[in-house]
């Protein structure tokens, strides 16, 4: 018999189909009665509060380094005064959301993948299912929604700290006052810059939570699969973020800046 479709294609189609089914289960269970508020708040605390230091330090250093790197070049053109607005716009529009999302993919997506993977291996998810409880509602919906809400908040905090970092670098080199730095930074920033930037972080949050849950929930039996689930969660979530960002930039340039 002649094979019309190569085996790798079949695997890819099956994997894509599984993801669509899983996504359907997530959306169906959001609106079911008995939303798990306590678990949602616990996950929001783990995903949001416990990532504060990592995201905060990253954001601050991002602004700091970007300012230090761009200042010498800008000085050559006599455009040092544009550094605050340039750093602010690049961080808020692009670098902040993407870098923070990638960091969160590494920290949160892998952690969700490993946690659900080990629950699968130790039959805890099966135990929930056979008891008649709804594991998707308890484990998946709460984690994805917590990511959708926490990733934008973490990004906004990182953006603010990146501006602080930018100010620290400018102040160190040029003895710029805080008032002057921030007035320059905000003068070039439009409210319209913030909306698409925050909107795409909502999708990044969904990707981070969804991929982590999907990989963990569908991991194979055996302890090795926990590591595989965590690893592939990071890789897939990072890829999703890059692709979503490319789409978001295209859409933004068509609708927001024209």
């Amino acid at each position: 018999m002649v094979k019309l479709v190569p085996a790798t294609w079949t695997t890819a189609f099956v994997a894509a189909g599984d993801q669509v089914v899983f996504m359907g289960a997530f959306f169906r269970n959001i609106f079911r009665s008995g939303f798990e508020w306590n678990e949602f708040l616990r996950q929001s605390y783990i995903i949001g509060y416990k990532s504060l230091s990592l995201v905060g330090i990253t954001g601050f250093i991002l602004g700091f380094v970007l300012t230090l790197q761009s200042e010498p070049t800008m000085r050559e053109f006599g455009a040092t005064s544009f550094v605050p607005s340039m750093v602010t716009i690049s961080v808020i529009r692009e670098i902040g959301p993407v870098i923070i999302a990638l960091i969160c993919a590494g920290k949160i997506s892998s952690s969700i993948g490993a946690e659900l993977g080990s629950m699968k291996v130790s039959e805890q998810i099966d135990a929930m299912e056979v008891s008649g409880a709804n594991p998707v509602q308890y484990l998946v919906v709460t984690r994805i929604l917590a990511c959708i809400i926490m990733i934008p908040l973490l990004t906004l905090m990182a953006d603010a700290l990146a501006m602080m970092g930018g100010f620290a670098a400018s102040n160190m080199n040029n003895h710029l006052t805080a008032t002057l730095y921030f007035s320059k930074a905000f003068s070039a920033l439009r409210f319209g810059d913030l909306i698409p930037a925050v909107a795409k972080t909502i999708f990044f949050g969904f990707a981070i939570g969804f991929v982590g849950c999907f990989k963990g929930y569908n991991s194979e039996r055996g302890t090795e699969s926990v590591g595989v689930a965590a690893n592939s969660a990071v890789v897939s979530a990072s890829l999703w973020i890059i692709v979503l960002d490319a789409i978001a930039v295209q859409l933004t340039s068509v609708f927001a800046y024209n």
Partner: protein
Amino acid sequence: MVKTLVQKINSNVVNKPGAVVAIKHLKKSFGTKEVLSDISMSLYKGENLVVLGKSGQGKSVAIKCIVGLLTQDSGSLKVFDEEVKDLSEKEWKALRMKIGFLFQSAALYDSMTVEQNLEFPLTRVLKLKDKQEIRQRIEEVLEGVGLLDAIEKMPSDLSGGMRKRIGLARTLILKPEIMLYDEPTTGLDPITSREISELIMEMQKKYQTSSIIITHDMACAKITADRILVMNNGSFEAEGNYEQLESGSDELVRSFFK
């Protein structure tokens, strides 16, 4: 000889009335590996049925089909006269409330205390809201398994035997009519194994359950079995009570008693 015995088992066990679980010509494969080649069996009300067999013979697969964790490839599987492959999601949920499943690893939710583990099915499945009633039911079932003082402990603080007892308590808290035990004494020392076997009998008398006990522990089989089915290579090869099988001439069956 084996073939005749299998046919005898199939014809004897599936035609009697009063079966709470009735399986006819059930087949299940994973890829090209056939795990259940053709099994037929029944579990009668109030009966303790032990399924005996070496590891990897398909014993656990059979009971996972009963509870819907796996789907059969062909054959009939009726629980309380309902064909399980025809059940909707809602009907499965209702049916699962009548079936308890004790996993080999006990499958306790390791992020929850013992109390929260027991509270989980009460609040999610029975939708109980009265805190006092919930606490009373938890204490009652913990007292039954002799572990009331472990109520505040985390699963990681419990020994293997204690985990099995708590797992049993979590299953029995929903007062199921059928209990499925997946190797309840595996990994335990002989004294704890006997205690767990005796506890199974005690709980069966208290809650009037019908049970299928998957094991290869002969001490457990001796204490718990009303009837024993011996599984080999995905099908049943012998049936009888403990004494009948012990005095039988079949080589495979006798090897369990050595």
